[in-house]
């Protein structure tokens, strides 16, 4: 089965989810029943803070959960494909199973199986609609943390080949100029690198998916999910235009390849 390259983008009309991280306090997240929400600096996925939830018993969609009321929430448009990513953490060696409900749909159990590691929980649905509460609860009495919720639209493409993302095949080096001294000796001043990524995908036949790819291209905050990496920002190598290739000169076979650069430089390879 081919790997999936998930393109995530903020649609032209996508509103922002309020209180998506805990950097500004607990915000409008509310404690409901046996799930107490607070701001914590014990652990954080990004920044300094995360949301801490102490569940004294199993949660549910009605009376026991952490809740972000609908007024702060994303308005989901019926029929669009949404991807919600939430980073979760627990120190409990047994892990924790979390459930999200929003847009009128309840996710299945989203498991954080490894203790002391931030885990990306991904909930995808094409059935979300309306502006509804964002609810989160644990399956039993646990303490867990969550941070950096991202809600995006997405399109998934089957990968034929990938270079530079999962293996250090191609990088752009970053640093000062190469010094050449008067005695003829030379020295580099490279301090970091960014991944140069090329992904070749199977032809896309759905016009809806082709439009989603276009919206991903023009979104300056575009991200991708691939293998174990989630919500990785990406920059286009070619900023002048974007084109698919018609395999065999046939309009039924629009084939997509992406030449990408990681927006930030790094000093260690991430995977």
């Amino acid at each position, binding site marked *: 089965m081919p790997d999936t390259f998930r393109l995530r983008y903020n649609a*032209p*009309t996508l509103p922002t989810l309020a209180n998506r991280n805990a950097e500004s306090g607990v915000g409008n997240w509310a404690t409901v029943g046996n799930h107490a929400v607070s701001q914590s600096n014990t652990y954080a996925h990004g920044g300094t803070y995360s949301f801490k939830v102490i569940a004294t018993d199993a949660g549910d969609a009605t009376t026991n959960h952490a809740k972000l009321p609908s007024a702060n929430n994303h308005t989901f448009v019926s029929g669009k494909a949404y991807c919600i990513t939430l980073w979760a953490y627990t120190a409990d060696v047994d892990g924790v199973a979390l459930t999200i409900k929003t847009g009128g749909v309840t996710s299945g159990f989203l498991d954080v199986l490894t203790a002391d590691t931030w885990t990306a929980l991904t909930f995808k649905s094409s059935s979300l609609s309306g502006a509804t509460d964002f609810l989160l609860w644990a399956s039993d009495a646990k303490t867990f943390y969550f941070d950096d919720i991202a809600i995006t639209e997405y399109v998934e493409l089957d990968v034929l080949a990938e270079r530079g993302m999962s293996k250090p095949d191609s990088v752009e080096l*970053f640093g000062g100029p190469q010094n050449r001294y008067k005695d003829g000796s030379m020295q580099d001043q490279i301090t*970091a690198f*960014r991944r140069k990524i090329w992904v070749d995908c199977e032809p896309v036949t759905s*016009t809806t998916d*082709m*439009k989603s*790819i*276009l*919206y991903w*291209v*023009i*979104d*300056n905050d575009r991200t991708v999910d691939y293998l174990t990496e989630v919500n990785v920002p990406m*920059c*286009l190598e070619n*900023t*002048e*235009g*974007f*084109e*698919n290739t*018609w395999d065999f*000169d046939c*309009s039924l076979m*629009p084939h997509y390849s992406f030449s990408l*650069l990681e*927006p*930030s*430089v790094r000093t260690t390879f991430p995977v």
Partner: protein
Amino acid sequence: MASTITFKYRSGATTYTRTFATLSIKGLTRPDKVELFPPLRFEMSDGSIRTAFKGFRRVITATLGVLQEDADRAFVLNFLQSNDRWIYFGSVASVYCVLLDPEKFENEWKFDTSLARYYDIQLLETITYTTWPELVEPTADTLLYIGSDWIEVTGDESSPITLTTNAGVLVTDATGNPYPSISLAAYAVELIVRERQGCLCYAGNVTQSGTDVTFQVWHADAGNAYSDGKFYCRITIGLQAK
């Protein structure tokens, strides 16, 4: 079934039209190729990079294939050298275009023979978008209305003025775009006349004129003229697919 594309250009007050069969049309109805705007990538001192796109424009490739008629080839040349050109695809969608390469154009001689002059026309849409422009066409259940700007009506019922879409005072619609091709065989056409400040105006029957429509408009003997002493109206053309 081969699809077709209609090229139109304006020279002086005259609009020229020709419809070509195409081998393919890339980038018009599906997002195959776009130009990004502005094509910028900012590089910060910490090494991070970021694009700043505001939108895109369609890059349209119409592959006409071999054109064997001199008249067709001459039309293409005139279309390319006009600075006021647009294309039609479907029945009513008009797309104003510039050339992807404004410096030159060359056909291709397939099999190195002058008998097979092959045409691939590459165009850039003049405007940019943030969402993909959907092709909107009138159907039996969906009407399409096209409004005009204010038109001076100089004659009464005994001396009406004759108006034709894409010509004279109706050279463009209220948005500045050309009128679509209107076929009376394909559409039920209704005219709606809106008077300016109580000066009564009327429109007569609609007749076909090439790919355009023609009708007469006049003002009533009764009623008040506009403050400048003239009669004005706006014509809205309503289309419903038959």
